[in-house]
């Protein structure tokens, strides 16, 4: 079923909206959750939580790309669960967090809402500056939490090349955040 029709079901408050969403994106959402949590049971719970969050969001929200809307919801829920569990294994999320810590002088302190908005805007402008492949690899690593090896295979690159690219990109992000005055 097309995304447009599924969204219409949400607007009609039809319960088949969830069924159709699960049928089309269930596997995809479980995959996103599993990348962060690395636990099937937790991933299934996050999947179900994503459907609930979508039911509560649509309407009023009317996402143009349902897939991305759901991915973002699922990702955030998974990250929240991750925080709750405070997993100590070197999961993809842990690794990603460690890498991103380079972009900041220190990792301490809680962010305020204003800082969140500023960070979001800074990230948007930063991503807009990047060359396409560089941006895609950056987002696959830090949004989709793909492993280095997986990214390397997807792009026909060596892992070392992907690592180097991500290193340079983080360095650029650090400089950009500094210019934007983000918590330096």
């Amino acid at each position, binding site marked *: 079923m097309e995304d447009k029709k599924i969204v219409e079901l949400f607007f009609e408050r039809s319960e088949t909206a969830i069924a159709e969403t699960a049928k089309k994106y269930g596997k*995809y959402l479980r995959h996103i959750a599993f990348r962060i949590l690395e636990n099937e049971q937790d991933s299934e719970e996050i999947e179900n939580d994503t459907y609930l969050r979508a039911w509560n969001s649509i309407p009023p929200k009317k996402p*143009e*790309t349902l*897939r*991305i*809307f759901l*991915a*973002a919801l699922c*990702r*955030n829920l998974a*990250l929240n669960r991750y*925080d709750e569990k405070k997993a100590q294994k070197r999961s993809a*999320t842990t690794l*990603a*967090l*460690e890498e*991103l*810590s380079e*972009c*900041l002088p220190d*990792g*301490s*302190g*809680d*962010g305020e809402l204003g*800082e*969140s908005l500023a*960070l*979001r805007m800074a*990230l*948007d402008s930063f*991503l*807009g500056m990047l060359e*396409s492949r560089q*941006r*895609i*690899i*950056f*987002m*696959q690593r*830090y*949004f*989709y939490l*793909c492993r280095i090896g*997986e*990214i390397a*295979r*997807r*792009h*026909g690159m060596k892992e070392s090349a992907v690592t180097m690219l991500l290193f340079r990109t983080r360095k650029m*992000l650090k400089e950009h955040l500094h210019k934007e005055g*983000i*918590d330096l």
Partner: protein
Amino acid sequence: MKNKDILRELGNVDEKYIKEADPAAPGTGRGSHFTKKLALIAACALLVTTFACLWLFLPYDRADEDLSALNENNLPSELESHADSEYLDLMLAFYKFDKSQQNVNRPNNNFENYIEGILDSFFDVFANKGGSGAVFDNAVMAPGASSPSDGDYYYGADMEEGSYVETTDNQVAGVIEADLFKRTKTHIFYLNRMSMNLLVYSIEGENSRLVSEYKIDHGYENMFSELYSAQIFLSEDGKTLTVLGSGIGYTENESGKAKLSVAMLLSLDVSDPENITKKAHFAITGDYLSARLVDDKILLMSKYYVGKIDYDNEASFLPQIDTGNGFEVMAAEDIIFPDKLTSKYYTVVTQVDMETLALDGAAGCLCYSENVYVSENKIFLTRDYTDYFEGEDDGVKYVENKNVTEIFALGYGEGGFAKLGCVTVDGRVKDQYSLDEYKGVLRVVTTTSGTKYIGGDITVNAKDGVIEYDGDAIATNIASNAALYCIDLSTWQIVGEVRDFAPDGETVESVRFDGTNAYVCTAVVITFTDPVYFFDLSDMSNITYTDTGVIEGYSSSLVNFGDGFLLGIGYGANRNTLKIEVYVENGDKVESIASYEREYLSFSEDYKSYFIDRERGLVGLMIEDYSNVQAGNRYILLTFDGYKLVEVLDESFGGLYLGASAARAALADDYFYIMFFDEFKAVKIYN
């Protein structure tokens, strides 16, 4: 600010960046990179394949040179430097012919040009190169007789001691044909083509002997090396003998000596048979076809093929004649050719004095074949080709591609040759005996055939006559049949004809004309059956005919046997059975009244090798007998007593199987003389 804030806020960035990086979507990574690579390879492969197909199958530009627009005022570049040449018209005709052949035979695209050639070589398929090459030995030794000619013909009134006695059953009285064997009242002259020796025997019954053996040699290397082409003439007074045949000659040019094939004449003084000497020689480039002797003038027919032409070298497209001072090209006014050439073969006719071999006229007839018929004052040459005819059957268009023959006549006599006229008839003639001139009318018998295309979309390329048709058109063979035409030689118009008189699928095998009568044997050679037709040509506007019906075997030679009898020599039930039959016209049919058959043998279809004596009702020929291990060559002689054919002689010539066509025989007084290579026998057959 914690690093996890960056991680979380990445989830809130512009959706387009998230969508762009989605690993599951195409074009975002492995799927993307690999797909791009694959797409690039596929694109390259498609491009290469496309270019390869275009190069292989794109048709060549067939916007051919407009040959019809070429003339003396609009010459192709190759001929511009020859604008003042007396041979310009001929050169232009050759140029157009060569170009049209290139267009017909060339491939339509690179696939046909390169790949098919490789495949053809691999599968050992040989394309037909066309051309009707001269098989002059068979053309010379043509069977059948077309008009009465006595076995003993004296073309001189004085029968002096040693004077000529005719031995050849000539097609036309007074037009002597060359042969292996000639004689006088006292001597036999026989040419052994195997050893190229002229053998002279005395005619003295049981005391006959070899008088002399003269090696034919003119000083040219390997002269008369062709085994079956040499023949002889003997003058009326029996003193001059002319040898004719094919050999190798030499010509001098700036590049030095060049070897070439020639038709040669060698004149010998045989007034003293024991001391034969050379008198003169004559040569023309090409191959010997045949010759006639008329009133001490020799008409020599030779064949000359033009290969690759160099327009700067006239010898590359013109026959050359050597009268003793080296080879010279023929003059332009002596070359005869049609508006549109159909081949690059010349039939060259030259007239020379028998005594001196001095040239007295020449005509190079381009595109004409080796079937030459010579009447009392005309030479008839034939040119066969295919032509197309368009029509409609009940509104449905058809095109017929048929074999046709153009018959062209030259007058001969004092002062050389003169063009007389031409006519085109359907079908192809078998040999010289298919034509006959009688009281100003030319009679011709042909085998007709062709292909018919009907329906669909049929177009004919006017430039080269190639017929193109689509899948809806039906192409069928027009079954072979026979036709007889009568042409008024004063107007060159057909004044009488009979078409399709034979069963479909039959071909003309032998013809004989006898005054107002014509005898035609048609046959389906594969099944060895034939009818013999008798035509009454006395009223050409109402030609009638009868036939024998289908009978076993077929006659390769038909002979007027005198007293209203027709003799057929040919095959019985198969190719190893000799069948000699006597026919007579009986009311509304032709019937066989006597027959002789003999099996397990082979014999020659060379009519000149048969002995025919109408006065005594004798017929003889050499056979190769396979009936038992001790058999070999044998000469059989039959007599027809009015009721049946009876064997009177069955003479062995040893255990070797040699070509039966070389045998010749003569009857003098009570003795029958047989010559076969270097063997000679005199057998008394009358007491």
